[in-house]
């Protein structure tokens, strides 16, 4: 493991960047993503569910959005919203997209459920100029308490299933994820941690604090100038 810098690279008050009055029933974590996506961008949302986030981005940011969703139910809901969504999954379908096909690629609460998170992340960096990625933080104090004091696998709002039925097979902490970013050569442009209610933590703090208090991590990544180490970049 390479040395981690002591603090996140860009102290970023995600909540403050949101104009008041734009809330309008939207989920806070979606608004955090909204703040990271430039208007009119080409966006791919992987694991887009019923298309709520894509529709929000389309309606508020005028993006040209695409989605990938595993469940047929989710795909149908997206079709009804007029969103071009394909039934597929992150582990198998990303290889078919060309390099730099999108301005922003979003992977929300999904990387921990992929078979090969490293390859998925490398594909995200290859396909998108920027990557927005969020995941439940396994280093959160509640998770640690469940495991450390009760000796049980944690069940939390972000990880609601028991160990024997969860799709999550590759849990990581915020610090673990920072390590993976270093390994694949991703530049962390912005990062924040959201608390258990999805609110961004407002102050720049060392990684270890976020790793303890953040229920989930939200990162904005880009390719390091040059190449992605060991990446599947296509020619």
């Amino acid at each position, binding site marked *: 493991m390479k040395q981690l810098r002591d603090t996140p690279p860009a102290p970023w008050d995600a909540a403050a960047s949101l104009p008041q009055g734009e809330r309008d029933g939207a989920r806070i974590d979606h608004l955090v993503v909204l703040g990271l996506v430039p208007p009119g961008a*080409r966006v791919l949302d992987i694991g887009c569910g019923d298309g709520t986030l894509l529709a929000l981005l389309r309606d508020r940011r005028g993006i040209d959005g*695409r989605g990938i969703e595993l469940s*047929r139910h989710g*795909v*149908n*809901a*997206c*079709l*009804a*919203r*007029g*969103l*071009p*969504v*394909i*039934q*597929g999954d992150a582990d198998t*379908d990303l290889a*078919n*997209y*060309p390099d730099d*096909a999108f301005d922003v690629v979003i992977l929300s609460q999904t990387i921990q459920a992929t078979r090969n998170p490293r390859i998925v992340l490398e594909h995200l960096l290859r396909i998108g100029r920027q990557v927005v990625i969020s995941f439940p933080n396994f280093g959160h104090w509640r998770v640690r308490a469940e495991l450390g004091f009760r000796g049980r696998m944690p069940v939390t709002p972000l990880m609601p299933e028991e160990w024997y039925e969860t799709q999550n097979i590759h849990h990581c902490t915020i610090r673990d994820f920072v390590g993976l970013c270093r390994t694949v050569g991703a530049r962390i442009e912005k990062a924040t941690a959201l608390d258990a209610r999805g609110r961004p933590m407002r102050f720049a703090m060392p990684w270890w604090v976020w790793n303890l208090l953040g229920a989930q991590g939200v990162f904005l990544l880009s390719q390091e100038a040059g190449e992605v180490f060991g990446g599947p970049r296509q020619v």
Partner: protein
Amino acid sequence: MTLSLDPAAQSRTESAVPVPPPTVAEAEAPSTQGQIVQFGPDEPLAMDAGVLLAPFQIAYQTAGTLNADRSNAVLICHALTGDQHFAHTHPVTGKRGWWETLVGPGKPIDTNRYFVVCSNVVGSCMGSTGPASTDPATGRAYGLDFPLVTIRDMVRAQAMLLDRLGIRDLFLCIGGSMGGMQVLQWAALYPERVFAAMPIATGARHSAQNIAFHEVGRQAIMADPAWAEGRYLEAGTRPAKGLGVARMGAHITYLSEPALHRKFGRRFQDGSAPTFSFNADFQIESYLRHQGLSFVERFDANAYLYLTRAMDYFDLAADHGGVLAKAFKDTKTRFCVMSFTSDWLFPTADSRAIVHALNAASAAVAFVEIESDKGHDAFLLDEPVMFAAAHGFIDAAARARGL
């Protein structure tokens, strides 16, 4: 092999008991086949075989009303043995329109909102020019003198029909199986004329296995002495046995093992014991024989040869340097691709190949794999999930087009 349920009939042949063939005049009568447009000697169809086909005609049916902007036109592309009677009683079989599940007032393709056109493909036998039509050069039926037809030829002829109808571009182009091939060809050949495209249960090329099945069907037809080297119309015979066997074989590929098991299992047709003969003991045998028999009533054997060949030749990637994505380069068309889990003729992998190419071309594409045990024919049947997805996609496309 015989198509008759009567064992004594095995010794008879169709050529021994000739049935009067449908005359060319009958086959092209506008009264039964809907509307017909004629293209004269000055408007030939430029075919991939290098032939200018002229004169020729296209039979078609419509439903709904074209709006003032002419922006609400939907083109339905029919499958191999389909026809233009998508929402109209069939003139030969008396059956209801083949896609009334999907098309009609309040249906996903809402005839209260859209103007729907479906034409019989060139090379077929339901009123459009094909091998059973009269060759003006000889005064007799074309037979095998008819040029080989491709999917692209079918699409060019459809485009000429739309030109004649004053329809510049399509709101939606939709079809399943061979119809889906036409949809893909439309999007590749006339991208600016297709706002939304729905290729269903199809592929961007015909697989080796599918070509193999088609070849078995063609050989069955050609092995029938009544086929008479394709000159059966003049000989006054009909290769009903060969065409029937071809249909029986093909029909199996349209179903699935679970569906066959559910409908027929190993159940006997009469009684509960085998007859120790080659009668149609099993229900599935009787069903297939019926499929073969009823098919020959409505379809021309040479047209079957030509249309199966057209599907075999279809390979959209090969037309674009081997890269399917190039067929859709810079397309503005929005796509919705659908497949069915139990379809082994055009399995989901074929649809995924289309979707991947569209992704690579940065096209707006939706894709759904629908859970069904009904096999390839599921696209023609009552599939609520397909209807829901189609409704969502078409309504959203209509909003985007301001319809």
